[in-house]
């Protein structure tokens, strides 16, 4: 346990902004934007401090804190990060100020609740990645639905019917998944209570599972796995639990959509990687073929549907489904390479899709329509917009040199080692990605200037300030993925060590992979 | 059950007599039909319409019935107490004071709120 509660401070930092917004005198609600931006930047700084404090060579979980919360159920407030969680936290804290900057005018004249909700969402997102107590994780996992729900339902596109439909659908899907997970969490607790002193502590549980102290009967383990997995599969929309995402992402404001796709959904894949695999290794193995089938279907299905979309935001949402299929593939590949790739992909996808969503949002804001038909020849009127859009698109289709390429490559290679068929089918999605991204660019940006586009203004400084950091990060990480993999590799290695059923040679592989990446 | 046999006997005698009387009355008397005779009696004027099935009921009597129930139940508890009074001693007395006091509260309420006003 570190002497200074770095993580707690990071988690709580956005609350300073919430308090500030609440204390604003009447009539000065517009100032909330600045306060929110400030608070999120502060969080970013703090998270960078965390990263600096993190000792890459040290134990898996660092910056640990633990306080008794509900003693009756052995529930603790315990936080701590391993490399994977840390990079995801960093991604979150990067995306939040960007989103706030991009959403400057999306508050529908009710700035206070809007920006407060964004900040609360950030608290929970950071918290969920940092939680090392299963209960705390669950609580935050469920809790962040509420701010997201209000962000979608209250501030999305006009047309309350569709908007509230999307919000309710989002919440119900996730809540049902979450409730199943609740049952599983309780089941886990009831079983673990007998043999584990600290039955909600992730580390204690993982240790007990790997050492054999905690043994589930086969049936129980499979049910518990399902409880967790379905919740995560809904969150990281995996076919067939995906249908809420296109609705939610297209109805929400672009900023919300970025957080939704960029961060919230990552919790699902993050959860699979951490909880499903490590707590229920046998069941995970047993279910792997089924999961892989779902993942592959998601990958191809998402890509195919993306091609058919006429709505820009829906298109991007479907690309995400395709990408999440790949991430899941990597997670369940049972190779260190695949898992490192998947972890890396989580970050990169957040950046790339985030940029794409934001730029689409800027366009939609100018034109007032999300229909692809309504655009054309934008590059002649707004070259900056078109240029950044192209960059973001290319990164999304994993062009070498862009950061997603590294991760996608690692995932596919990692999968190929053990499940070549799945990997081969997964590769087709890359081809499809080229189709939907380039076609999208062609239809909107090139060709004759559409009448409605003729008076487009190019990106202003605020918008540039929002997008440029993302693109810069994509490029930097594309060339120097080691910045992230140095954090990710040890975590994956250690977690794969804990998965007892994993064949020993994969550990060596992982070590080698880690070395080669460096 | 023997104790109640005499009561039953007396009841049979009385009942027999009453039923006999009613039947006799119907048989011995003359029958001369007259429309007006079978109307309800209303001092010679057209009878007020009487809703069939007792549609009307003077609500105020309900109050009397209600009050009666309260006090009748009180009596139900008073009697055993009175019969066993000598053996109950001070305890019984005190309890009954409390009990009657409570009923008196209800009584005072009814009195003050005009429940004991008839006109």
């Amino acid at each position: 346990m570190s002497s200074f509660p770095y993580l707690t401070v990071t988690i709580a930092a956005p609350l300073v902004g919430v308090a500030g917004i609440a204390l604003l005198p009447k009539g000065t609600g517009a100032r909330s934007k600045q306060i929110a931006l400030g608070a999120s930047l502060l969080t970013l700084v703090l998270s960078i401090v965390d990263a600096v404090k993190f000792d890459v060579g040290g134990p898996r979980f660092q910056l640990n804190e633990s306080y008794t919360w509900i003693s009756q159920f052995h529930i603790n407030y315990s936080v701590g990060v391993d490399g994977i969680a840390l990079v995801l936290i960093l991604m979150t804290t990067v995306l939040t100020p960007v989103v706030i900057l991009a959403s400057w005018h999306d508050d529908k004249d009710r700035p206070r609740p809007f920006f407060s909700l964004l900040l609360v969402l950030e608290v929970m997102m950071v918290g969920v990645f940092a939680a090392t107590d299963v209960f705390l994780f669950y609580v935050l996992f469920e809790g962040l639905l509420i701010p997201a729900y209000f962000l979608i339902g209250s501030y999305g596109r006009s047309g309350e019917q569709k908007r509230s439909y999307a919000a309710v659908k989002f919440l119900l899907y996730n809540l049902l998944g979450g409730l199943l997970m609740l049952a599983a969490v309780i089941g886990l607790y009831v079983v673990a209570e007998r043999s584990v002193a600290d039955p909600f502590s992730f580390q204690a549980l993982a240790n007990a599972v790997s050492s054999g102290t905690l043994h589930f009967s086969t049936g129980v383990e499979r049910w518990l796995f399902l409880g967790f997995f379905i919740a995560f599969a809904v969150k990281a929309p995996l076919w067939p639990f995906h249908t809420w995402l296109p609705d939610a992402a297209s109805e929400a404001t672009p900023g919300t959509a970025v957080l939704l796709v960029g961060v919230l959904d990552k919790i699902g894949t993050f959860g699979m990687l951490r909880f499903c695999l490590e707590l229920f290794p046998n069941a995970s193995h047993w279910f792997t073929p089924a999961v892989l089938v779902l993942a592959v279907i998601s990958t191809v299905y998402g890509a195919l549907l993306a091609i058919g979309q006429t709505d820009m935001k829906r298109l991007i949402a479907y690309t995400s489904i395709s990408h999440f299929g790949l991430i899941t593939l990597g997670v369940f590949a049972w190779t260190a390479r695949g898992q490192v790739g998947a972890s890396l992909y989580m970050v990169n996808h957040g950046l790339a899709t985030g940029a794409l969503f934001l730029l689409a949002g800027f366009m939609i804001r100018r034109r007032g329509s999300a229909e692809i038909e309504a655009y054309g020849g934008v590059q002649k009127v707004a070259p900056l917009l078109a240029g950044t859009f192209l960059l973001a698109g290319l990164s999304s289709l994993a062009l070498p040199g862009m950061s997603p390429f590294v991760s996608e490559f690692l995932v596919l290679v990692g999968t190929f080692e053990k499940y070549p068929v799945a990997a081969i089918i997964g590769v087709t999605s890359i081809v499809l990605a080229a189709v939907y991204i380039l076609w999208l660019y062609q239809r909107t940006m090139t060709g004759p200037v559409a009448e409605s586009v003729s008076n487009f203004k190019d990106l202003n400084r605020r918008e540039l300030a929002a997008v440029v950091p993302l693109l810069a990060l994509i490029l930097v990480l594309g060339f120097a993925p080691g910045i992230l993999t140095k954090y990710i590799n040890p975590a994956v290695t250690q977690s794969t060590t804990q998965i007892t059923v994993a064949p020993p040679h994969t550990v060596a592989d992982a070590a080698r992979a880690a070395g080669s990446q460096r | 059950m023997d104790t109640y046999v005499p009561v039953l006997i007396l009841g049979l005698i009385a009942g027999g007599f009453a039923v006999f009387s009613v039947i006799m009355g119907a048989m011995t008397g003359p029958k001369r039909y007259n429309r007006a005779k079978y109307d309800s009696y209303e001092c010679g004027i057209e009878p007020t319409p009487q809703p069939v099935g007792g549609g009307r009921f003077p609500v105020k009597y309900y109050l009397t019935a209600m009050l009666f129930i309260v006090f009748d139940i009180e009596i139900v508890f008073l009697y055993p107490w009175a019969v066993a009074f000598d053996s109950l001693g001070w305890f019984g007395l005190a309890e009954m004071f409390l009990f009657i006091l409570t009923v008196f509260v209800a009584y005072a309420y009814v009195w003050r709120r005009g429940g004991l006003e008839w006109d």
Partner: protein
Amino acid sequence: MNPDNYLYLSAILFTLGALGVLIRRNAIVVFMCIELMLNAANLAFVTFSRMHGALDGQVIAFFTMVVAAAEVVVGLAIIISVFRTRRSASVDDANLLKY
């Protein structure tokens, strides 16, 4: 006389009361059926009291009477107020609350 017979009588009365509540539509009749059920319970109490050779059951019957009386008072108040506003004591006419 065999006390079982009283129990049978009590059970029959209770069933009749319950059936009456379910079948009859007039609030007052329904209410009377409920009173019948309470009295069936009283009869059972007194019979058991005799079978067990203890007086408890009879005392309980006393209390039941009190409660039944209170119920009568409250119930009639409600029924009368409903009757005054609707001119009907039929349970079927009380149909404003539905799902």
